[in-house]
């Protein structure tokens, strides 16, 4: 039986989140070099008339259905040994979308980049000095990174 390494995770505090979208902007700027929410892994669900905003992002499951569903597992979807995340290797992914169907969340936390024809999701900015960029730039510490040891 495969042992899934423990992963860190991002936690969102809806009571503090201003819905400013800085996390989305930084995410797509850092990962894709573009402006726009379409390719951001972090997604704010704004509720301007209650001011309680939701947040959709990969939950870094302990038993990741996406990984188990992937026909190219350990190539297209892999485990990162350091921060613990499951991540998608763009060079290997064929964009088949099976992982998206397998994601237990609604809406799925994996999306397709139509231009590149690959799936993408939050990888906790693995390898980035300073950790996830959204956490570093959030003006109100509404996003917190919980490491795999604290989880």
């Amino acid at each position: 039986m495969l042992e899934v390494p423990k992963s860190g995770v991002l936690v969102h505090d809806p009571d503090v989140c201003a819905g400013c979208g800085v996390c989305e902007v930084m995410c797509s700027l850092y990962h894709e070099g573009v402006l726009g929410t379409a390719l951001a892994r972090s997604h704010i669900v704004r509720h301007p008339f209650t001011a309680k905003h939701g947040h959709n992002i990969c939950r870094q499951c302990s038993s990741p259905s996406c990984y188990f569903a992937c026909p190219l597992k350990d190539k297209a979807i892999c485990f990162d040994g350091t921060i613990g995340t499951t991540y998608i290797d763009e060079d290997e992914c064929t964009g088949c979308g099976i992982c998206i169907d397998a994601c237990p969340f609604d809406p799925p936390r994996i999306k397709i980049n139509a231009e590149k024809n690959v799936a993408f999701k939050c990888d906790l900015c693995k390898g980035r000095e300073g950790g996830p960029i959204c956490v570093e730039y959030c003006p109100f510490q509404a996003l917190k990174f919980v490491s795999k040891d604290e989880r």
Partner: protein
Amino acid sequence: MAKSYGWAGKVLQVDLANEIVNKVPTSDYRPEEFIGGVGLNAKIFWELGCPKVNAFDPANPLIISVGPLTGTYGPFGRGEVCSISPQCYPDELFTYSGFGGMFPAEMKYAGYDGIVILGKAEKPVYLSIHDEDVEIKNANDLWGLETFEAQKVLMNDEPEASILVIGPAGENLSRIAVILNETKFAAGQGGFGAVMGSKNLKAIAVRGTGVVAVAKPDKVLELTKPIIEENKKGVPLLRAMFRTPYMAPQETKDIFARKYFKKHYGCYGCPLQCHSIHYIPGIGLSGVSCANWLWSPKFSIDPKEVWEANVLSQRLGINTFEGIIGLPLLLALSLEAGILTRKEIEEDIGLPTPKWLGGTATNHEFLTLLLHKIANGESPYAEGTPRFTEYFGKKLMSGEKLVNLYKELYTARGYAFHHVDNLGSALHWATDTRDPVDSCHEYKNSAPEAMEHFGLPPYDNYQIIDLSKTVYQGAERVTAWVQDNQCLKNSLPVCEFWSLITSFYNPPEMDLRIFESRLLSAVTGLDMDVGKIAKAGERIWNLRRAIMVKRENRTRENDTLNEPYFKKAITCPAGSATGLVNGPIDKAKFEALKDRYYELRGWDVNTGWPTRAKLEELGLKDVADELASIGKLP
């Protein structure tokens, strides 16, 4: 064609009368020269021929643009509305109003740098934009709804859309109606809500799922790093200041902070989040910032009354600067000066009088009646303070005195007093088409440091608070400098509110022209050095001037302030400068200052018209040719 970075690439043109939707490439409007925002809007208006029509004429275009920096991390989440303004007085002028919020970034992600709306729909409609799909839809069910309600209804169909909407005030053509996004983000000055209303256009709902490429993302991350560093140092000044009613006694502030504050709030992608959200049961939840708090000091410090004034204005779609400051203040000062009696206010003007108007009505009674009368468009209040004063000036015994008092409160072209405490700002007021609000702050706050940096005369020289020390020589240089910056900021766009502090918190690296030129270059991939972007600012100011000359017969005679500013010392009645006494300005010296300003601008001193040499230097030969053909090139 080379890949475009920074700009979304298209300008959307909508003809509501004929239900025609058209898309043209932004490159048709030379965006590298006019940038976006006010610059792009002015260019579009010029290409439309600067129609000499009234604000409510279907041929008046409503133009909304964003810029190459919109949607980037930082104080850039803004757009600009330009149109012929029903609020300007006595003549309706082509002017601008910036707005923040969520709409500008969403509009850009949908693929549009600009939206141009022409014509009048036969019946109420709203514009639905979902990336490429643009539809003019029936808005019968939305018409009559307040702004929050209308957005909630629209969000049932388009849950992730960002919406620009008008309230009853806009529908009923109040000249102080705003265009609103969410609870607080408004294109406030100009009365553009009524322009939308005149077109039977209730709302614009936009959803953008596209992306806009950035030329050098790593460079953008590097350049914007100081913004987050600064943000980490503590609560930003403006956020702290406007979190509670800043002019009210500490006790009132404490109640808001303790009981009603929900969270901070602001524009998309900006870490400052300088607005805040408060909630009072029975009145409601809304956003708030500087001008929304100004009901408090003069009239009431009761938190519920302060809050009701703000929330009701937003819901009805009324400009808070006018509806809850301008007119009530004029009435209060009139009573104080013995110009109006309580009886006249009640019987002739038709408003209940609370304590501060000498009566016994509640503030709730006063406010609800006033704001609803503005919103239903049926009373002279709906026309805004200048036209209200003109109306009652003719009807009342002391009408002339009322008009004179109005002219003290309203500096020029129908816009209320705002930081006219120095010659630079006064000259700016004299040569603009509306109140240059946030630029007025710049004269006192950020410009002094920048002036030192760029070798301009020091601020203290041209203040008009202590007239014995006022120097007129040199003020023209500061005005021209701030005006070019203003055009640039409203085109890139950069929030003028934030740039008060940020552009200069780390000079010279973060100076507006140095920092912004680097950022613009990194985003667009073009080499937009300091000289080029400064030139762009000057180009935009000159194009705006050409529009004034062509459409509005602007000459140097019009470049002035209301007479009281040259005749008496004026006390600032509201805001952070309350009680500050300034002026009078020496008329002859001011005219000489104008001479030097026109010379510095490369304009004709006798007419105040731009010259061919200056226009051609700025790449505006076509503008010079057009002005020559109508006999308005000196």
